[in-house]
């Protein structure tokens, strides 16, 4: 993993921490830096968030800025939009992205549209944090991966990092951005660790993919949990197949250039993302590559995702439908 920082401090200034801690650190730093930043969501305060992401932030910043809400996502999502339009810089937490259906109106018709509809005369500096993904037996209403919706819907940026470092750098950029960003956190990697820059000015530009590992034979574009799984797989396959692993990190905007460049080199592409396959994130990534590297492709693009079903409860069923490294491996084997 790269340890680039924007401030030029060396790799010594990193610390190993979990994905969850990296997010909390980003929140803390940005709240320290800018008084207009506040957090709003269900049980983000004393409870510390159901996935313990906000943790102790309420102790440092108080209940006004780490604000527990009634169970009224549309109301407080809209309040976030109204607050952002009037000089605040809210971070709204939606506990599970599966719940976003109760408040998607405020996202699609207000947050995403105000700037455009008003002729560019307003900014919308809001960040929505939410969780995604299966793997813990949370069943169909708490395990979905919905980021394709918001990568597709114009007017919001959709970020879905796969490593603690990216999580910190991108969340800070999201908070500082004057545009609305929806930040998707895969629940299964909250505990994964990595070296994270401690520099308070370390940010990563939204819209830049990261080549997590270089390779020659096949490009694996992987998101969220699939990043780590693909990296491990690549190590395992080392010597047999040389696998390049890229985390797009931001789904919208999408760093087409980095992906295309890689496929021009390898000639082969596997896309691994936990979305349902039909009309999923995979299709867009595939099309972009095809549009820009059509004559470099040596084999059909392979998609690894969920076969258009919901995430079932029973561990055997859940395990069956979720994408795993073994699926990526099979996809690689089909084309290499």
């Amino acid at each position, binding site marked *: 993993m790269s340890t680039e920082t924007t401030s030029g401090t060396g790799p010594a200034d990193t610390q190993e921490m979990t994905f969850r801690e990296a997010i909390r650190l980003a929140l803390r730093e940005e709240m320290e830096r800018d008084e207009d930043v506040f957090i709003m969501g269900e049980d983000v305060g004393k409870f510390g968030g159901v996935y313990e992401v906000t943790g102790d932030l309420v102790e440092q910043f108080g209940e006004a800025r780490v604000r527990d809400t009634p169970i009224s*996502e549309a*109301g407080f999502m809209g309040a976030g939009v109204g607050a952002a339009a009037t000089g605040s810089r809210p971070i709204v937490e939606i506990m599970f992205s599966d719940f976003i259906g109760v408040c998607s109106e405020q996202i699609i*018709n207000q947050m995403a549209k105000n700037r455009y509809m008003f*002729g560019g005369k*307003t900014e919308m500096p809001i960040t929505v944090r939410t969780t995604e993904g299966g793997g813990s037996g949370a069943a169909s209403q708490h395990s979905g991966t919905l980021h394709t919706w918001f990568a597709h819907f114009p007017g919001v940026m959709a970020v879905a990092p796969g490593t603690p470092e990216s999580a910190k750098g991108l969340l800070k950029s999201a908070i500082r951005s004057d545009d609305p960003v929806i930040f998707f956190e895969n629940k299964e990697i909250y505990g994964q660790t990595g070296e994270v820059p401690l520099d308070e000015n370390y940010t990563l530009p939204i819209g830049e993919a990261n080549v997590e590992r270089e390779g020659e034979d096949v490009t694996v574009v992987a998101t969220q949990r699939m990043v780590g799984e693909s990296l491990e797989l690549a190590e395992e396959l080392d010597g047999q197949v040389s696998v390049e692993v890229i985390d797009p990190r931001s789904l*919208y905007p999408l760093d087409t250039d980095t992906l295309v460049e890689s496929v021009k080199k390898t000639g082969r592409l596997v896309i691994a993302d936990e979305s349902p396959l039909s009309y999923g994130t995979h299709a867009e990534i595939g099309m972009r590559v095809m549009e820009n590297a059509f004559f470099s492709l040596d084999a059909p693009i392979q998609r690894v995702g969920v076969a258009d079903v919901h995430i079932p409860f029973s561990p055997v069923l859940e395990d069956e439908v979720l994408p795993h490294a073994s699926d990526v491996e099979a996809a690689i084997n089909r084309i290499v």
Partner: protein
Amino acid sequence: MVVIDIETEDGQREALRRMLTIRAFDTKAGDLFADGELPGFVHLYVGEEAVGVGACSALEADDYITSTHRGHGHCIAKGLDPKKMMSELYGKADGYCNGKGGSMHIADVDAGMLGANGIVGAGPPLATGAALTAQLKGEDKVALAFFGDGAVAQGQVHEAINIAATWDLPAVFVVENNQYGEGTPVEKQHNVQNLSETAEAYNIPGFTVDGMDITAVYEAVKEARNRAADGQGPTLIEAETYRYHGHFEGDQQPYRTEEDIDIWKDRDAIESFKQRLVDAGTITEDEFDEMKAEIDEQIETAVEEAKSAPYPDPSEAYEDMFNATVPEISQFSSQMRADGGEDR
């Protein structure tokens, strides 16, 4: 925004002027729409002028309002410029939104007008958010949400009021009960007699006032603003009013008769307010006629200027999505533009 102190004679005359401006603007907009001059939908505020003007007269300059699909009246009441509004209705480059928004999306965030809104019930959460900013920053500002009787049935309105009540936010909620949501009468949308009864669900003050009486609206909102600014939380005010036109222009109105409308026209808010000012000697009949003529001319000029104003350049369609630059938009659009540009 010029604040109207409606407790002074100047303020009363200004309030009357704004009511007349709304009436003239929207009557004209209706005619223009009927003539096929305006694209899209227009929802007119004719008949409801006392609500918008009465409420905005009770606000301070820096206060915020959120509006609805029926937003022209709120804009004018908040002091927006009818010229830039008319240009927007025509989709011209010098409109409030440079032609991107149209009738349903006029906004002037700097003037505290957070936007007309095409989504029923979407405004109140925004007002709750503006009030939250004020509370967090300790600013002496209040956010007022206008919404219709129909909107009271929307979940997000309920959520917004509950949050504002629970957090004692400086917000004021004004229900414009014009008796219908599109073609459906209020009693088919709600089980309560008066929509102000819904305030009970939030343990906040709720009042029903005569929305055809600007003073009644003003006084209720003034008190609500004071409470809100004082940290005592929101108030819900139902203003009973009526729209003289169809839901949108073109509506055949199978759901009511001319006579139904006449009952309310007999209590016309402008007519009665004018009469009171004439009786009190605040304005003479001549001055009133003059004011009206002036306004009509202002609106005519606005229309002429809007007509002759240039449209935005087509390329502007691809601007304003984000503050940042997004490669997708420029790539896709340059391809689309390179293609079929000429024969559009």
